[in-house]
């Protein structure tokens, strides 16, 4: 079957391939492909084909997706951080209260008979006014202080169970107030 007829160039497919090959080689040599390639490589700016880059529409989609994710993450972080407590405020306040200079302003010692009280400097006046506002229960609360509580100050000194019991049970503070204002008294 593999006779000389088949090898002797009578195969049309082989002839076709050889013809194509010779045509391509001739074209490569004629049009100076090597020269053109060298010239192209030496050009200063070589723009890659469009398929190699991100298409503008895809790029916009990617950017907007990334921005959305970042915004979402920021929103979640902000919403969660708003509910979290910040413990440094009272600690800083306690530290400042412990400083001897500020203690003297906040809790002034009673003036003794022999020593005349010196007039306070403007700085002392400012600090004492700030401290008196933050300490008083009736004063307007400073924004952001005491974690936003309006009626309580967690950093303030505690009453203690003994004192608390004394106020409520021994002094009967609640009973005295309720007796004055409760309509239940009139019902009786």
């Amino acid at each position, binding site marked *: 079957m593999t006779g000389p007829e088949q090898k002797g160039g009578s195969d049309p497919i082989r002839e076709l391939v050889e013809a194509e090959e010779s045509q391509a080689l001739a074209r490569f040599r004629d049009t100076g492909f090597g020269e053109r390639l060298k010239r192209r490589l030496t050009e200063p700016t070589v723009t890659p084909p469009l398929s190699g880059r991100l298409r503008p529409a895809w790029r916009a989609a990617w950017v907007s997706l990334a921005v959305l994710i970042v915004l979402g993450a920021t929103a979640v972080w902000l919403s969660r951080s708003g509910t979290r407590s910040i413990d440094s405020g009272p600690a800083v306040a306690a530290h400042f209260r412990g400083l001897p200079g500020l203690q003297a302003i906040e809790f002034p010692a009673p003036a003794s008979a022999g020593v005349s009280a010196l007039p306070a400097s403007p700085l002392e006046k400012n600090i004492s006014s700030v401290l008196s506002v933050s300490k008083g229960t009736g004063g307007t609360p400073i924004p952001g202080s005491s974690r936003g509580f309006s*009626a309580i100050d967690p950093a303030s000194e505690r009453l203690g169970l003994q004192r608390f019991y004394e106020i409520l049970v021994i002094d*009967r503070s609640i009973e005295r107030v309720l007796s004055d204002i409760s309509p239940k008294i009139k019902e009786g």
Partner: protein
Amino acid sequence: MLKKAIGLLVLAFLTAPILAEEPGSSPVDKKVGYALIDGIGETFHQMAMSGSGGVEKVNTAVEKFMADARKAKEQGQVDPVFFARYVRILAIIKIAVAPDPQGILVPMFDDELRRFVREVLGEDYKGSGPQAIGQVANAIADELVNLHLYLDDIETKEKLRKAWDDKLSAPAKKEE
């Protein structure tokens, strides 16, 4: 492709702390609880000492304490047990001073006061007059002291729970 990978890495860094954080894991801040209880005590003490203030003053204080308690609960600084008992005290105070000249709400209010006095003092509620107010005031004072003691013992309770958790989760010893 490299740019995409870098972008994804940056996003992962941004979102990782948020996803890793466990909400509500902050411990109960006992200072806030004590401050809430002390606030009621101090308010009534000042009013009793000065003799000033009326229903409006009590209501204003109660509303502020309620807002603070709610905020503290949202921030995880008081636990649900404390919050529920504290809010009940505020509600009882509000009921006790609520003006009701026509007596429309008396049955409802009396039911609530009767239940409160019964649960805290173990007494039958007198219903009206100075004795009734005395009972309600005693019950409020007692419940505030109970809440104080509850806060004092939170750690003890937590230690007990942890000890039992450890005991129960430990592998059982094989008997030889």
